[in-house]
């Protein structure tokens, strides 16, 4: 196991690459979910405001 993590002495380069890929792909996945919540909340707020003004 520790030999695997050691990557023949290239651990820093290999695991930084895989780690960065993981983080970036996670950000790609999470950001549209947050954006969707924000969008729907914004549209709902506008609808409530319109209804009050009527």
């Amino acid at each position, binding site marked *: 196991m520790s030999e695997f993590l050691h990557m023949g002495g290239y651990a820093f380069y290999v695991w930084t690459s895989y780690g960065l890929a993981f983080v970036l792909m996670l950000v790609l996945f999470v950001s549209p979910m947050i954006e969707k919540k924000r969008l*729907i909340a914004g549209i709902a707020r506008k609808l409530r405001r319109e209804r009050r003004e009527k």
Partner: protein
Amino acid sequence: MNIFMRFYHRLASPRHFYQIAGQWIPWLGAISLILLAWGLYEGLLVAPTDYQQGESYRIIFIHVPAAWMSMFIYLIMAIAGAINLVWRMKMAEVVLVSSAPIGAVFAFLALVTGSLWGKPMWGTWWVWDARLTSELFLLFLYLGIIALHGAIEDKRTAGRAVSILALVGVINLPIIHFSVEWWNTLHQGSTVSVMGGSKMDSRMLRPLLIMSFAFKFYYGMILFMRARNEVLDRERNTSWVRQIAEGKAS
């Protein structure tokens, strides 16, 4: 109207696209996750150590699929741009705009993992050779498209402007691809080839291809998620979006 035309028209309608994309997202995600797990297993545990580069070459299973994606996504954007300019198809515009940040992320990932591979193998993080420079230019094209789209208030005008930029920039794709042949680059020539056969052990080639398919499905999932948001934003005044916002439909 035959079944394909009906499918095309349904996808071209924002409302139906929103529904269909919503159904596809979990499947794309599941396929991508399975392929990722399989590719990582084969790439990190099954594939043998390289006789010249030792274990450092395992960066290839991120680096090459990411670089392929950065070019594949750009090609999709250029095609969407052409469709938008010729047929004024709203959904093509949505695909183009939603793809740009994903393409930028993959171009960035290809550059950084390349750097992390270059340091131990070439002894340098960066050289201004044709392959690296043209890939950096691709990242700037993505950022340019994102910035241009953000700078123009009217969505249709912005869509047309980025369509033109995406089309003009497509000239960079053959330059990236052939850079290792046309110029004397520090970056190696292609190891994987569709036509000429690959110069690679099959235990290394298999995880490379699995990872590249995993990234393709991942892109599909993220593209649909982003495109759905773009549709919600553009159609915010229609009754079906209002219903979703009020929680009557998903």
